[in-house]
């Protein structure tokens, strides 16, 4: 067993880190305050290949592996959780399923623009009445000639506000539950797509979380992703991969907060000594770091399993669950170490605390992750 990153992964990590230090970290506070990631940054991340890291070069991706992708999301999220989830949702939840389930024509048509960041991807599964329960999908479709006609609504759609490319789940017969679900590739600039609202959130405020209504959205038949009635498989497989992305995001947020807390504890003096001299602070740091390291091991392992084309369902659930709980724990403790300053926006740990919470909720709540893990243990 070798727990070291390969030299190539280290090169990648340090390249991403440099970019993040110079291009993202200085504006992370502004992204949060203005509820928006500047278009220039999105474009720049596209040019860097951050939006197509593990997709093959023949489709305009960087041709790297899942571990590289996890490192990219982690490093970006150290500075900005909003930018991290943009990459994660875009790659895992849109480019990912198109690559896995798409035909050669579909891959050639959609992936290059996604990988370059020319269009931003999203995943349209969640509905007002259906979250992790994909079988409850109420958005319906019918076939009319060479088109599918989609009606319904979707909510909590990360990256939705970019009106880019989406993988959308709809049912042709709600009574069939998950067996009636089909996946489509949709261009969200099409007629029939309405943004109901972009949500105002506690954290990851720079990331779009969009509610859509679809009123006779017409999709050509060649946009069918996989087979009719097999959309549930697409959704489940996509969420599996997506969990690695969210785990990486959570891991990054935790590391970002830890770095600040560690530095602050050495600088801040009380009673004529740095507060890191106090065991109360030392124990916090030890616990925080141990949680971060275990999260990292779980996350990297899940990524490596996916790269090795082995089953990773349980591992992705574990890393998502553990990393997200680590993120909320570490960011909370980071504020505590900062004392009153931690509660002030300037020190950024309060933003990280707000950003962290969602990682326990989206991409399957941690309760659902526990269901996944325990089911596999008991089956």
């Amino acid at each position: 067993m070798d727990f070291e990153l390969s030299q190539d992964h280290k090169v990648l990590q340090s390249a991403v880190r440099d970019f993040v230090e110079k291009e993202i970290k200085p504006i992370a506070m502004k992204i949060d305050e203005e509820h928006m990631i500047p278009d220039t940054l999105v474009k720049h991340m596209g040019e860097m290949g951050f939006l197509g890291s593990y997709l093959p070069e023949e489709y305009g991706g960087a041709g790297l592996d899942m571990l590289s992708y996890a490192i990219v999301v982690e490093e970006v999220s150290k500075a900005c959780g909003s930018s991290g989830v943009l990459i994660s949702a875009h790659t895992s939840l849109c480019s990912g399923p198109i690559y896995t389930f798409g035909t050669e024509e579909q891959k050639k048509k959609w992936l290059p623009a996604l990988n370059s960041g020319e269009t931003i991807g999203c995943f349209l599964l969640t509905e007002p009445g259906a979250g992790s329960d994909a079988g409850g999908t109420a958005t319906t479709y019918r076939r009319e000639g060479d088109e599918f006609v989609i009606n319904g609504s979707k909510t909590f759609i990360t990256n939705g506000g970019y009106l880019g490319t989406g993988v959308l789940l709809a049912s042709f017969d709600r009574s069939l539950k998950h067996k009636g679900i089909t996946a489509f590739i949709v261009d969200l600039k099409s007629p029939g797509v309405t943004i109901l609202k972009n949500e105002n959130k506690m954290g990851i405020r720079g990331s779009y979380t969009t509610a859509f209504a679809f009123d006779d959205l017409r999709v050509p038949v060649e946009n069918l992703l996989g087979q009719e009635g097999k959309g549930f498989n697409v959704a489940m497989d996509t969420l599996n991969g997506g969990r690695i992305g969210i785990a990486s995001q959570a891991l990054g947020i935790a590391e970002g907060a830890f770095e600040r807390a560690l530095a602050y504890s050495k600088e801040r003096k009380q009673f004529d000594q740095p507060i890191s001299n106090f065991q109360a602070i030392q124990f916090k740091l030890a616990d925080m770091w141990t949680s971060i390291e275990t999260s990292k091991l779980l996350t990297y392992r899940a990524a490596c399993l996916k790269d090795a084309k082995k089953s990773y369902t349980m591992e992705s659930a574990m890393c998502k669950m553990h990393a997200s709980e680590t993120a909320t724990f570490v960011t909370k403790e980071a504020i505590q170490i900062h004392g009153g300053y931690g509660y002030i926006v300037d020190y950024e740990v309060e933003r990280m605390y707000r950003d962290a919470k969602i990682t326990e909720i989206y991409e399957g709540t941690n309760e659902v992750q526990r269901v996944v893990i325990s089911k596999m243990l008991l089956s």
Partner: protein
Amino acid sequence: MKTLLIGEYREGKLLESTYELFGFAAQLGAETALLLVGSESQLPAYSGTLYLAEVATCGEYNPGLHKKLVLEAIQKENPDYIVFLHSSYGWDLAPRVAAALKTAQISEVIAIVPDGFEVGCCNAKMRRTVKPNSAKAVLTIQAGAFPVTQPGGTPQLQKLTAEGSATIEFIGYEPAEAKDVDLAKAEVIVSAGRGVGKKDNIPVIAALAKALKGELGASRPVVDAEWVSHSHQVGTTGQTVSPKLYVACGISGAIQHLAGMKKSDFIVAINKDKDAPIGEVADVLVVADVMQFVPALTAKLAQ
């Protein structure tokens, strides 16, 4: 012990920093000889041997020829140390001389210590003591590390000439660009904090900055209050700076400010509060009202 000191000329003038070489030689307790590529119309106040080559024929930057001149002077003087300033002229020429002699070069010497010379490393965070293995050694000394020493007198001139085709053609000088504030490059920063009182008092701080040939900096509250533009802000959300001199005027020293300036070489804090945290990083803490002390200091410096 004997040193051959290599002085500097730029744009027709003897550079004042040349006198730091004498300060170094004095600390070493060594005899001196000086080499200058300059002009007889501008001779240093120095009573020793001056090897003078005409700048009109040898150029201000012509490392090939200057190397020959230095080597010739070395042959005549047989010095133990050939000493340059660690400057754009010195660090360019010194390795050429050292390579020609195949002798040790020790760069950016900041102190003379019993077992050699002390030099900075790791971004000035650490020090190395280095000693030459060769009989002679080429040294470059850090600007400002040794005191300016004017030996006085009239030099005994020994004129040198050198010929040969230059491998480098010197085209000319370009003046420094007029820039908006670039605190990262400033050698002196005088920063205003809330203790300055009000926006109308900022010019008082700016005047001190000007008197010290430095830039105006500011703490975050002063920027937030729009007394000074953001480009002047020092601290974690502004710029991190490490000038040779940092003067904190009416800055109490919030951690985010300290993190942005504590690596400065020398820190002066002017504050009414003797216990202000800025005192922890300050080399000198002046306990005074900023608006009384600063104008007095500026006036004195102007004299």
